[in-house]
């Protein structure tokens, strides 16, 4: 039992790691496609493939190890310029990545044999073999070097110690090259030490010399024959180094070889060491790295994050405990206030006030920190989209520039988990229905390449995500016709529907405007599912579209689901909480303003008709409707539709912790849960979405 448990522990770490590396490869392959000469990107892909190879082999997943091994070989050829990055190669790399993903899923689902790797393995091997047969000039040159290498081989094979090895690895990651420079002095050289010193000095200007053979002390002491070696970390190429050394007199021969560590023997521990030693390396190569920062696209590729993996449940528990502290904080403030009212300015009360303030500040900070611990950058979701959009676009024969902004925006993990699917649907729609084929775009005077922009940002206590395309837009009239045709709305309704409302027809179940059903966008189950998903996590979705110009979806989400800013209202003897996110506004109504439309009470608010509802009806409360002359109405809205809910009294705004009513009572339509108030009593939280649904059904 114990060993099984341990295995699963490793398995989840392994899967996390593979996920991480797949993500890295995904991103970098796409950026390689854009910037085909970028060696640092290639190196990142190589490292990721290598890491997967190592860990999958050690976990005993041979297929994955084999695929990544072949992939690594192809990448190595690319790194050495023996192979150029072409669209075919990019496709091959992506395909390879898909296979790795499929293999990963096989592991998760505990079936090891499903995915066929023979095809991809063959393709990878073919690429390698074809390359080897090609008499490219590069290769010839390389061969001449290797011939030279041949005779030097045994004599000059160098063993590096761990520190040197790490420096070399890190340098490679940063896009530097490591060269081994073998210098032979002329046999009648008189001042060997001085020559060696000059060589050292000249090389020093090019980069960092990390090792000499013999050691620098021995060089100074002239304790060598005619030959010495230097190892340099630099961005300069072979020729430059060779020329510089050759320009020094009394040099007989110079051989410059690139140093590459043998990756085969590298194990996982080493790669771990690598990131730890990064800091040390940064110090060593201080001046060099400063220059590196000015080179775009390289410095950002490596970021050291010191992290601890924590069980999600543990975070949930912490959050619950903080929730209780928040309640007590409010209670403490209440007690302090009532004591203050009773005893006035007692000296002891001052102390209590101070403590109460301090506690509220600390719980506030604690709450914020734990919330942050549960927050993830939305990047986690966004990162898989570029690849998806690329594939969708190429399948649909469309040209699309996909822009992502605000990757760093943070959201609660529960929301992150939920938001992926709706976004996928919206992006698919944008590619499939939004952006026109290139020729059609040109015909309409637009650039052939369409643009889809995905953007996330924080706006007060909400996260806003927008998906915007510059495609053909949506014509409300077409929607009305379609809805009529499908019997989704009545003829009578279609005549008085506003353009804004018409756009919302798209969210009705069973609605699809695609003329033909494609593999991409499916059959019109998309938009209502999108809406449901978003509303389930207390969000809102809005659509804005201009025919011919494009469509924009705006999604608003709460930062977290556990704690909520709410408006507390009194109704009868009970206190109810309205989540602030669902409240549009509060209006005061005088009973004489109430009008009737088919028995439904309505009021006019700035010219718009607002239907009025009462909580006793919505929640079947046993509460006799009192005669009200003047009363506040909470206007709530979800995706354009708005209704007014009559309340007795507004209490105020407060941060509340959402608690479920428990399994015994279960889910009650119209209620989102309960919360504990400052005075210890329980207030019910209204589920505006549920209420709206009920209202819709009553219509």
């Amino acid at each position, binding site marked *: 039992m114990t060993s099984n448990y341990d295995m699963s522990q490793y398995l989840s770490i392994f899967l996390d790691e593979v996920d991480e590396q797949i993500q890295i490869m995904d991103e970098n392959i796409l950026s390689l496609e854009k910037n085909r000469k970028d060696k640092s990107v290639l190196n990142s892909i190589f490292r990721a493939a290598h890491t997967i190879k190592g860990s999958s082999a050690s976990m005993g997943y041979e297929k994955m190890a084999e695929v990544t091994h072949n992939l690594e070989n192809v990448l190595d050829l690319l790194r050495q310029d023996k192979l150029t990055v072409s669209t075919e190669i990019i496709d091959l790399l992506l395909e390879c990545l898909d296979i790795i993903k499929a293999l990963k899923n096989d592991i998760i689902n505990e079936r090891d044999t499903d995915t066929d790797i023979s095809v991809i393995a063959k393709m990878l091997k073919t690429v390698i073999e074809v390359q080897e047969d090609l008499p490219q000039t590069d290769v010839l040159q390389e061969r001449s070097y290797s011939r030279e290498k041949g005779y030097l081989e045994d004599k000059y094979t160098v063993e590096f110690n761990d520190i040197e090895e790490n420096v070399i690895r890190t340098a490679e990651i940063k896009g530097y090259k490591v060269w081994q420079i073998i210098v032979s002095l002329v046999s009648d050289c008189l001042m060997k030490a001085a020559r060696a010193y000059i060589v050292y000095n000249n090389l020093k200007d090019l980069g960092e010399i990390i090792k000499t053979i013999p050691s620098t002390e021995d060089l100074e002491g002239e304790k060598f024959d005619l030959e010495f070696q230097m190892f340099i970390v630099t961005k300069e190429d072979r020729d430059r180094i060779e020329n510089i050394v050759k320009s020094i007199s009394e040099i007989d021969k110079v051989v410059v070889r690139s140093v590459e560590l043998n990756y085969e023997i590298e194990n996982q521990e080493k790669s771990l060491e690598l990131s730890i030693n990064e800091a040390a390396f940064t110090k060593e190569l201080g001046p060099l790295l400063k220059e590196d920062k000015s080179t775009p696209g390289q410095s950002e590729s490596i970021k050291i994050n010191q992290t601890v993996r924590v069980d999600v449940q543990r975070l949930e528990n912490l959050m619950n405990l903080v*929730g*209780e502290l928040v*309640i007590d904080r409010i209670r403490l403030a209440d007690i302090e206030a009532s004591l203050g009212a009773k005893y006035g300015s007692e000296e002891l009360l001052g102390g209590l006030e101070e403590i109460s303030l301090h506690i509220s500040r600390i719980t506030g900070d604690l709450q914020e920190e734990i919330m942050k611990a549960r927050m993830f950058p939305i990047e986690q979701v966004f990162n898989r989209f570029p690849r998806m959009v690329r594939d969708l676009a190429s399948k649909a024969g469309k040209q699309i520039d996909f822009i992502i902004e605000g990757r760093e925006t943070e959201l609660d993990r529960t929301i992150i988990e939920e938001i992926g699917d709706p976004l996928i649907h919206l992006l698919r729609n944008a590619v499939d229905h939004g952006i026109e084929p290139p020729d059609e775009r040109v015909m309409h005077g637009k650039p052939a390449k369409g643009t889809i922009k995905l953007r996330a940002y924080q706006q007060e206590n909400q996260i806003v995500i927008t998906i915007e395309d510059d495609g053909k837009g949506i014509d409300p009239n077409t929607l009305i016709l379609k809805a009529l045709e499908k019997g989704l709305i009545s003829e009578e309704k279609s005549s008085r529907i506003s353009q804004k409302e018409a756009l919302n027809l798209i969210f009705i179940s069973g609605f699809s405007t695609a003329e033909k059903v494609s593999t991409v966008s499916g059959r019109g189950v998309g938009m209502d599912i999108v809406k449901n998903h978003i509303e389930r996590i207390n969000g809102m979705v809005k659509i804005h579209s201009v025919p011919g110009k494009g469509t924009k979806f705006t999604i608003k989400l709460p930062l977290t689901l556990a704690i909520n800013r709410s408006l507390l209202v009194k109704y009868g003897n*009970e206190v109810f909480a309205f989540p602030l996110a669902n409240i549009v506004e509060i209006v005061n109504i005088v009973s004489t303003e109430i009008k009737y439309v088919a028995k439904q009470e309505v009021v006019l608010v700035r010219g718009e008709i607002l239907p009025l509802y009462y909580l006793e009806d919505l*929640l*079947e*409360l046993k509460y006799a409707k009192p005669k009200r002359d003047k009363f506040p109405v909470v206007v709530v809205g979800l995706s354009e539709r708005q209704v007014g809910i009559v309340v007795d009294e507004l209490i105020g705004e407060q941060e509340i912790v959402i*608690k*479920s*009513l*428990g*399994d*015994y*009572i279960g889910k*009650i*339509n*119209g*209620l989102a849960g*309960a919360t*504990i108030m400052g005075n*210890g*009593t*329980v*207030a*019910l939280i209204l589920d505006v979405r549920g209420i709206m649904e009920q209202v819709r059904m009553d219509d």
Partner: protein
Amino acid sequence: MKENQNSIQGEEQLVILELSREIYGVEISTVREIIRMQPITHVPKTPNFVEGVINLRGKIIPVIDLHKRFDLPVREDTQDSRIMVVEVDDITVGMVVDAVHEVLRIPRASIDPPPPMISGVDSTYLRGVGKLEDRLIILLNLNQVLHEKEKRVIEQMAAAE
């Protein structure tokens, strides 16, 4: 441990409560705590025997009224009224009772199966009747009391239509 000994000795330890002047017993291991009456927040759209929810040290606990559960005459809160918090199969529920008296041990041997109907309570909710000296103690079957809820809800919904 003590309980084990009890069962070895063939004894049951019961918390004795009062409901509409009858004496009931609940197995002590299911009782979490006994608290005084406090304001109960009514939860709409629940079966009539669900009184609502209370705050038990930061946790939301549902409260049911055993009178209504058993179709007994409607209670009135008195000084002696208590909420008995019980936990059965991971479900924690507060039960409103007229009074809680004492903890008693009664020998297993003196427990008889419940008669079909006793003091107006359906025998499905009962585990048996215990006799101690001249007292009759009705043993509640909490599993049934708490879990037969779905049936009740369905019945109610059917009745409402």
